[in-house]
């Protein structure tokens, strides 16, 4: 098993990411409720090394990595990715012109 440590920091970080993703009513979102229910169900076990608990923790860590890297990737994309060419109207507007309107189409 991967060296993951205690599940509490992972759970807290995952819930924080879900809060960023969901918006105002994050507590009612299905993902938030599902994650909390899953962690509560696996909290108490009689075994010292619970395989299902570790599987859940690994899945939670993977989902956390997914949400976090998608958010960072989107931020980088917004900042650095090219916006494309300007349309002809925008180019004309740069120097203060407007494109001519030809009602019958070009002659």
């Amino acid at each position, binding site marked *: *098993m*991967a060296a*993951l440590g205690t599940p509490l920091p992972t759970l807290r970080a995952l819930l924080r990411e*879900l809060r960023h*993703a*969901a*918006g105002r009513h994050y507590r009612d*979102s*299905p*993902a938030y409720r*599902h994650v909390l229910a899953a962690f509560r*169900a696996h909290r108490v076990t*009689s075994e010292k090394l619970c395989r*299902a608990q*570790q*599987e859940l923790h*690994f*899945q939670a*860590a*993977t*989902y956390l*990595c*997914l949400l976090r*890297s*998608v958010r*960072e*990737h*989107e931020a*980088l*994309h917004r*900042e*650095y990715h090219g*916006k*494309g*060419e300007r*349309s*002809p*109207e925008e180019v004309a507007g740069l120097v203060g012109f407007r*494109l001519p309107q*030809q009602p019958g189409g*070009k002659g």
Partner: protein
Amino acid sequence: MWRGCRRLLWDRSLPIWFPRLPSTAAGSGPAGPCGRRAYAPPGERKRFYQNVSISQGEGGFEINLDHRKLKTPQAKLFTVPSEALAIAVATEWDSQKDTIKFYTMHLTTLCNTALDNPTQRNKTQLIRAAVKFLETDTLCYRVEEPPALAELQKNEWDPVVDWAEKRYNVTIGSSTSILGPNIPASTKETFISHLASYNMWALQGIEFVITQLKSLILSMGLIDRHITVEKAVLLSRLEEEYQIRRWGKVEWAHDYDLCELRARTAAGTLFVHLCSESSTVKHKLLQD
């Protein structure tokens, strides 16, 4: 050299399968009176739904955007076998603000690929494509110089290769020659029979992860929960990390690619685990 690298990195992005949205209001880019421009960014679809919810149908779980059901690009109904996967897909759709950015919705893309199977490969072809990567596995190709990099590769990659050899009872080895290691046929047979135990959906996910990480051994380490996603991505990009530490980092290239690779790998791993699990909860009553 850099452009060649970027072309290699862009190749990672195939196949991308964008979901088809129920409404047909396609917004094309602003077209001037002169017609299409040379490089026109495609029109972005605005978010047209308020609520995303999940419902259970005959085939599995479905996603509802407001009251319309989500469909795949080939117009099939979008059904997933696992509830957790449906919830994750719904969260992806719910987290889109203003415009819909398909390049951030990795789980949706994977589900669409599994449902539509656009390359029309059956199980044997998928397994064969996955095991073929073993011959060109990243972890098996070592350099001789610079010695610091060779040392780093030995310290970081050898434990993972040893773990894989012990876990699957095979010989893999590594080589510094351009032809690569000599993988015996029994090793390939072992991996083929191991991968045959996964269902079709999980195999699509496994093949996706292998293509992203360029390594079968790292993907098996992820599937067996031996290493975390961050560690696997680090090991896959070991040489790049070494060069970054030596020459410095370029945020708009290195960080961008790192985040994208992490996102895709995490999505693929989660997809495989959610498609191949079956959980039962045994409630033990407290004796009092």
